[in-house]
């Protein structure tokens, strides 16, 4: 009774996990992008304090494993008497984590746009915000796209850590199935295929985008 065969029931179970993974990915990407933009703007702002804070934040959070961040968000709050539901913990932890990496990637890309460009726009009287929005960021996008998409894909795969807060997403379902069937290689290869199906469209979009950007 113990070694079940690897059947369609298992595949459906994993598909159910896949749905969770997609949902988590959406949360992580949205939260991460918003928080990351805020941090990148802080990191390139003229305010020294904002820059310092951003730098320190990036330094600490980049170095902390996501699992630990998630652990602190979910269980840590209980130590101070607040009960945080799993999805809230996930949103917080992933946003904080992604903010650090995206903030750093985007800061580097913004700084790689030649000085002359911001001078050119300032000389025309464009405000700092306009100069960012219309001149600097469109050019920074070109160099930022590959590492950003790379990180997005990583983030999607990292949603597997949600099993720590008892969400049975794709990786957890694979673990359960693999332990029930004792066929880890087959199960994990199927999981890999599922992850591929979720992540790959993102890379296709990015390659398209890059091609378009390179035309100009």
């Amino acid at each position: 009774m113990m070694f079940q065969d690897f059947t369609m029931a298992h595949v459906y179970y994993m598909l159910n996990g896949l749905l969770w993974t997609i949902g988590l990915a959406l949360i992580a990407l949205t939260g991460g992008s918003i928080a990351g933009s805020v941090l990148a703007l802080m990191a390139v702002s003229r305010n020294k304090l904002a820059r310092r804070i951003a730098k320190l934040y990036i330094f600490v959070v980049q170095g902390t494993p996501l699992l630990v961040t998630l652990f602190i968000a979910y269980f840590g709050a209980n130590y101070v008497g607040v009960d945080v539901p799993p999805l809230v913990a996930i949103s917080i932890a992933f946003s904080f984590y992604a903010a650090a990496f995206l903030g750093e990637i985007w800061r580097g890309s913004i700084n790689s746009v030649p000085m002359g460009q911001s001078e050119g726009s300032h000389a025309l009287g464009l405000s700092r915000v306009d100069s960012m929005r219309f001149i600097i960021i469109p050019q920074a996008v070109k160099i930022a796209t590959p590492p950003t998409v790379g990180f997005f894909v990583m983030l999607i795969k990292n949603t597997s850590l949600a099993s720590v807060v008892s969400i049975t997403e794709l990786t957890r379902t694979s673990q359960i199935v693999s332990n029930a069937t004792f066929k880890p290689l087959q199960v994990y290869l199927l999981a890999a295929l599922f992850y591929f199906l979720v992540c790959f469209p993102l890379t296709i979009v990015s390659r398209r985008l890059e091609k378009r950007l390179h035309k100009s």
Partner: protein
Amino acid sequence: MTSSQQEATPIIRANKMNKFFGVFHALKDIDLTVARGETVVLCGPSGSGKSTLIRCLNALENHQKGELEVAGVQLTGKRREIDMVRRKTGMVFQSFNLFPHMTVLENCMIAQMRVKKTSKEDARKVAERFLARVHIPEQAGKYPAQLSGGQQQRVAIARALCMSPEVMLFDEPTSALDPEMVREVLETMVELAREGSTMICVTHEMNFARKVANKVVFMDQGSILEIAKPDDFFTNPQHERAKEFLAQILH
């Protein structure tokens, strides 16, 4: 009365202005007054501080000592002052600084739409007018990378003109042009001068200076050595260094 008073108010007034890059003393005790409608030519050897001076006038660099007033705004480093000065001045860079991700037309429209809140159609009309004026109306749809150096320089000029600034600052605007284009661009500038725009122009086109400049400013090693009417300057420079310099240009 009012009009003569307005003319009497200088649009640029620098008073013992100094600029340092770290320890390097780039501008030394600059005194300069430019009246509304005047055309001033700035010349001097490489590294003498011409670009630095003109960048201070546009608040792209902060000066450290002395006073600087541009278009009625005293520049002390405050954000609001800087914004105001930048709106009232236009700048054409030695290295163009066109926006590579925008077409020529968009390069000329963006600041109108964002800063002056001109409608898209109006901005396009203005842009097309000035592109025609610098003789490249047919390049409007191209990207800067698709243009020759000369064409790029003209886009940069058109872009600044579109903002109809009170003072136009030119940093060697014709250095990348061939002689015919130099003439055409200079003619555009002469027209501007005749229309009463105030212009400060770093250039070594002495014919331009002779024709329209109200005064020539000669710089060396961060100092203004001589300010004179063009005729006086060319026929009878006072300063030793200026004599040498002119000897070289005029062969």
